[in-house]
């Protein structure tokens, strides 16, 4: 190959890279959106999407909103402003020291008016905890560990993993089939069906069945990691699991999510204890945390 040809190839390749990274950048938010939507670049990018990991932050947010709405159609909200604020402060602290502190619209926590012991995390960071679960917690470490477990489900996108792959492939094909900025009524109808299906997949796992063994273990591991990084003693999770495991069988009937999963609480407990033993140093518990927990939850007991 002649030197001149090589130079030409070099220049072309360099331009290709620069154009590729520059032309598709949207510098002013949605103002430039229509230009990108109508470009062949966008169409090709859609064709590259094929798994839950390719769901964008904004799409995750819209999926999460609707999953949250489905959860809230089954549960009433426990309207106690100081308690809601407290739970959000504990949750936000854990989020700040997690692997994924930023989601499209941030993390938000709500208490559900139910006596069953349950916590649920919708994609994007909509996290719910029942009044019954709060009543099981004896201190802030236990609450923080449960919230950290739920943040772990969000951080690892466990909810999105529940969506059937075939459904996602259909959606991505549909999204990529037209370059118009908005959908036609027929496209919208089809995509809404896929959206409903995806919500059904997530709700079934989240509300009805519970996550499988592997994902629960992973969320437990992340709970230990996030709680410790925040400065909480991670033994809050072992004490919580222990309390549930020791609950009388009759009382377990009212225990949903946290008991529905395949791993037995004792198995989870053993694994979490082993993970904590591997830590070199553990944060100390504090009187001020114990005090404010007692104050915030006094109305529950």
């Amino acid at each position, binding site marked *: 190959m002649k030197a001149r040809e090589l130079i030409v190839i070099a220049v072309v390749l360099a331009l290709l890279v620069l154009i590729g990274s520059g032309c598709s950048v949207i510098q002013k938010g949605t103002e430039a959106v229509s230009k990108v939507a109508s470009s062949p670049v966008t169409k090709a990018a859609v064709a590259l999407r094929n798994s839950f990991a390719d769901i964008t932050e*904004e799409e995750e947010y819209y999926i999460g909103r609707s999953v949250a709405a489905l959860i809230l159609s089954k549960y009433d909200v426990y309207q106690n402003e100081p308690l809601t604020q407290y739970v959000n402060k504990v949750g936000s602290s854990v989020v700040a020291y997690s692997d994924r502190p930023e989601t499209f619209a941030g993390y938000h926590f709500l208490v559900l008016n139910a006596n069953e012991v349950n916590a649920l995390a919708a994609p994007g960071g909509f996290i719910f905890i029942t009044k019954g679960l709060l009543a099981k917690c004896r201190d802030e470490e236990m609450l923080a560990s449960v919230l950290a477990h739920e943040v772990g489900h969000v951080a690892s996108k466990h909810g999105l993993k529940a969506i059937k792959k075939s459904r996602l492939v259909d959606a991505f094909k549909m999204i990529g089939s037209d370059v118009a900025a908005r959908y036609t009524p027929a496209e919208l109808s089809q995509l809404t069906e896929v*959206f409903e299906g995806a919500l059904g997949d997530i709700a079934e796992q989240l509300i009805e069945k519970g996550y499988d063994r592997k994902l629960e273990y992973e969320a437990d591991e992340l709970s230990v990691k996030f709680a410790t990084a925040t400065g909480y003693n991670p033994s809050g999770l072992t004490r919580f699991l222990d309390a549930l495991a020791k609950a009388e069988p009759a009382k377990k009937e009212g225990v949903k999510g946290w008991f529905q999963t395949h791993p037995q609480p004792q198995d989870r407990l053993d694994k979490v204890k082993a993970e904590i033993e591997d830590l070199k140093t553990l944060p100390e518990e504090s009187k001020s945390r114990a005090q404010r927990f007692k104050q915030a939850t006094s109305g529950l007991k």
Partner: protein
Amino acid sequence: MRKKTPIVILLTCLIVTAILWAADTYIVRVKTSSLRSSPKFYASTVLAIKAGDRLEKVASEGDWIQVKNAAGATGWVHKSALEPKKFNLLAAPKGLQSQATADEVALASKGFNKQVEDSYRSKNKGISFVWVDKMLLIKIPLNQAVAFLKEGKLGDFGGAK
């Protein structure tokens, strides 16, 4: 053969430079966030940033990236708020078409978006979004979040390991 060597080096340098340039560009993928004065969540805000903003990497520390915007303002942001600008060299022979990121597609208002949610809601009128919207309004102001951490001896103010 000897004459070709500098050309090959030049070619390699150009490609590597271009790839590195592309790798150091990020797009904000969350609705809103902040550039912070230091790589900590509770550091003061330098500048508000929003989805679609383009930022260039200056440095990094753990999961935090120091970036600068087009106006030259610099600050720190957690990597979870950013989408690295990707360049797929293998896709190059197929032309430029493969080089947009999935997030640009979302920013193009396609995918599962408000239009799809509105359509879902019109089909499922029994599903209320009132509390979902109320939930999104729950925000802990920075000063309260810091006070909570300090009081509880948490995070950067106490027992974090």
